[in-house]
């Protein structure tokens, strides 16, 4: 007879988990790729062709596109969604005041008016912004869209109890009356101090502080109109009313949904969209390796999260010339970096921090993230190349082979009084194999100059809330280094920098991505940039912020993220938009 007791343990061995965890993009709105491009420029199918031009251009209408998501959508509700791919995709079923142009490369970074007729008009020192809406735009049930619907959409997104996951720009910046809790809890409060709707097609925003880059705020999906009588709060995500060329059908939460043509969408009111396919089918919670295999075999058209293929498919794509020809390698406006926390001794001394900047092997960082194709390009600045205002500089040259300048590191160690190195801990998110590999790389590289690191994994759900982002915890547990990453909510300096270098976002109660930057001068520089209405001047100011932060050696930039994407065999008009660093979902067409 046999030992029977193994059951549960065996069941548990059976209950272990396949480690192919794809992490959804941690990024928000989008970023740009730094490549030249112009629309209607068709290119031969070659490696990375879609980053600069359009592959398989076509105006043919019809066909079905199949999308898959390795996890669940964060939410389809435009008032709460906060991921780049979702903002990219939302343009299919919603129209916001402004939107990123559906064009390849750098041109995709341009803001064009969508629901609005023209970009916003500033007044009162950039504190008040006015938009006029286009006429004739309708919801998918036939009712006309008015400015009240846009106002309602924005106001509902400020209800952070019902929608805790979305961006918080409006609630922080609009001049809302005190005690306002959103249209569900305080429906009768007068909110004209924040948003006025003098007539059916005019909407006026009043901000608390000047905000010169307002058009970027206006492209957020939470300005997509929501009809008040069809709003179901937290359940609206399952019954969205569309203003875009497609509307929802067969929505099964957590499983799948389809988009079909919205017959109420009038192309005459919409010069921005081609709306070629008849139908989109989206499957949720599909195994990540499966997605890759199906993309390669042609059973799937788009991996919608667009973080790139898994390592298994990566090696297939890179070693097989036919597959490589059909792949793209866009830069996204995302930086993978490591915070060097000055609140943890001896990193309070700038020279000790500089030692880390010099000693780390940047190529190992790149390799840990997936190499030059799937990981990214070596980074020496905080702003990625795709953000206007980026300038290339390197304050801590790491040697000709980029494996670290050990002499400079040792000199810095002596300068800070730790000639034989020191010990500290490095925090990372346990579920992210790339962060684990990077932490190990840090351990190896810094060990060369005597800096001993102990690895500390933490669950990613609480990483900022309770561990690396909780200042008292960081000090108590000596988290000198914390792996980090940031993607711009939208491709401009404010979108990229505000959440990671502004000391005022750091909370004693935790939760901020900024774990290490506390420079009052930088805060002032950020504020003055926001009053500068001249876009070029403003972008330059962001560049200066970048340099100033790097001077303090509180951030170690790792790589500018790139992803390896596989093109669909069925899709047409395949192009990468720099706005999101992904394929432009709005422009895609289908052959069948």
């Amino acid at each position, binding site marked *: *007879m*046999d*030992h*029977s*007791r*193994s*059951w*549960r*343990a*065996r069941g*548990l*061995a*059976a*209950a*272990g*988990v*396949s*480690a*192919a965890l794809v992490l959804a993009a941690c990024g928000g709105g989008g970023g740009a790729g730094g490549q030249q491009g112009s629309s209607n420029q068709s290119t031969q199918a070659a490696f990375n062709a879609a980053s600069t031009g359009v592959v398989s251009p076509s105006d043919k209408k019809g066909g079905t596109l199949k999308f898959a998501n390795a996890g669940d959508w964060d939410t389809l509700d435009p008032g709460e969604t906060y991921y780049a791919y979702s903002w990219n995709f939302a343009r299919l079923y919603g129209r916001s005041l402004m939107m990123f142009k559906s064009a390849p490369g750098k041109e995709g970074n341009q803001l064009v008016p969508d629901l609005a007729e023209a970009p916003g008009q500033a007044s009162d020192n950039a504190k008040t912004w006015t938009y006029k809406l286009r006429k004739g735009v309708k919801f998918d049930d036939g009712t006309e869209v008015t400015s009240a619907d846009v106002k309602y959409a924005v106001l509902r997104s400020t209800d952070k109890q019902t929608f805790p996951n979305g961006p918080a720009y409006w609630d922080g910046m609009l001049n809302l009356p005190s005690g306002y809790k959103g249209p569900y809890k305080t429906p009768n409060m007068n909110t004209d101090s924040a948003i006025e709707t003098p007539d059916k097609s005019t909407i006026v925003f009043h901000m608390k502080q000047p905000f010169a880059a307002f058009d970027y705020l206006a492209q957020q999906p939470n300005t997509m109109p929501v009809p008040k009588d069809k709003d179901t709060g937290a359940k609206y995500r399952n019954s969205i009313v569309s203003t875009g060329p497609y509307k929802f059908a067969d929505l099964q939460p957590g499983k799948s949904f389809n988009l079909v043509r919205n017959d109420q969408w009038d192309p005459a009111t919409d010069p921005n969209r081609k709306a070629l396919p008849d139908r989109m089918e989206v499957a949720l919670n599909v195994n990540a*390796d499966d997605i890759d295999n199906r993309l390669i075999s042609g059973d799937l058209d788009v991996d919608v999260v667009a973080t790139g293929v*898994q*390592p*298994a498919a*990566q*090696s*297939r794509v*890179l*070693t097989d010339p036919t597959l490589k020809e059909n792949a793209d390698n866009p830069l996204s406006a995302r930086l993978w970096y490591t915070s060097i926390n000055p609140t943890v001794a001896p990193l309070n001394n700038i020279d000790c921090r500089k030692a880390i900047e010099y000693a780390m092997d940047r*190529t*190992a960082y790149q*390799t*840990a993230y*997936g*190499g*030059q*194709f*799937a990981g990214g390009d070596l980074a020496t600045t905080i702003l990625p190349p795709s953000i206007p205002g980026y300038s290339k500089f390197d304050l801590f040259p790491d040697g000709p082979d980029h494996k670290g300048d050990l002499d400079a590191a040792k000199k810095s160690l002596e300068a800070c009084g730790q000639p034989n190195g020191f010990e500290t801990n490095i925090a990372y998110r*346990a*579920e992210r*194999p790339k962060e*684990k*590999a990077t*932490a*190990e*790389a840090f*351990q*190896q590289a810094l060990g060369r100059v005597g800096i001993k690191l*102990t*690895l*500390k*994994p933490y*669950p990613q759900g609480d990483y900022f809330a309770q561990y690396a982002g909780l200042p008292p915890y960081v000090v108590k*547990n000596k988290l000198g280094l914390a792996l980090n990453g940031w993607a711009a909510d939208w491709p401009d300096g404010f979108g990229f920098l505000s959440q990671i270098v502004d000391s005022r976002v750091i909370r004693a109660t935790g939760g901020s991505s900024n774990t290490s930057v506390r420079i009052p001068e930088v805060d002032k520089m950020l504020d003055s940039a926001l009053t500068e209405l001249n876009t070029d001047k403003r972008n330059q100011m962001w560049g200066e912020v970048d340099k100033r932060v790097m001077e303090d050696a509180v951030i170690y930039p790792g790589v500018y993220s790139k992803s390896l994407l596989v093109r669909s065999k069925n899709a047409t008009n395949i192009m990468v938009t720099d706005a999101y660093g992904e394929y432009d979902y709005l422009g895609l067409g289908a052959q069948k």
Partner: protein
Amino acid sequence: MTLPPEVGAEAEAAVPEAVLVGAGATEGRSLGQIAWMRLKRDKVALGGGIFLIFLILLAIFAPLIVKYLGSPPNEFHQELIDTAGGTLEPIGRFGGMSWDHLMGVEPVNGRDIFSRVVYGSRISLLIAFLATLLSVAIGTTLGIISGFIGGWTDTLTSRLMDVFLAFPLLVLAIALAGVFPDQAFGLQGNQLRIALLIFIIGFFNWPYIGRIIRGQTLSLREREFVESARSIGARRGYILRTEMLPNLIAPILVYSTLLIPTNILFEAALSFLGVGIRPPTASWGGMLSDAVVFYTQPHFMFWPGMAIFVTVLAFNLFGDGLRDALDPRANR
């Protein structure tokens, strides 16, 4: 008189009597001697046993072995990885197998797989052995007590076993391992982690041994020799120690040997979930978990997988052989 180990006693069953097959020779041999003779004849089990000894030696002498046959287990060798082509795969066939790296290197960081497998054996064996010890200790104690004393103690213990059996072990394991502070009970870092894993694996598996021993005890309790001991006036403690325990050693031994491979697999699964040993320390389960993502690099999955497989196989073969040897009813 001695009795054979009970087999398959899951529920609270009174098991059928066993027929003791005599040794045949005129000189009486103890069960131990009989078992040893049988075991020696069972080549397969013997093979398993020898392999296990080899494995234990490997684990003990790991640093020495790695010093001569491999590279330090945590050392990166990025020159052996294809960074130029961007695939980050080991250069060379079979994962970069060479005399320097007998099993090749890992993708992405180029660590020597051979030394990681050798060091990993320490972790896997240590945790499996100690966890089994814990399970057996608790299970045997509670099993004997509840089987022997009976009554309310028995009911209570059985219900307790039910709770443990129905328990969502996964939830507990992840929650505990995720939340446990880094320093506690005088241990820290990986030492604490290992202790925690031993606790989780060992503590929650005791009902299995517990139920078996309880079943055994229940049947033994009704035997004549126990009754006669009682009638003489022997106290409970004496009966437990001199009459019951020797008869229970056989099943304890057998099931322990069979529990160890299960625990090895269990630890591998927990490492998979990310609640195992902290990197960069190597463990077989952790290596497999890393390797699954790189399934186009079969060598990476192959070696730790093979290590687990062969170890578990050896334990199973040996355990089976041991059980057959200790069971006089098995016809040879």
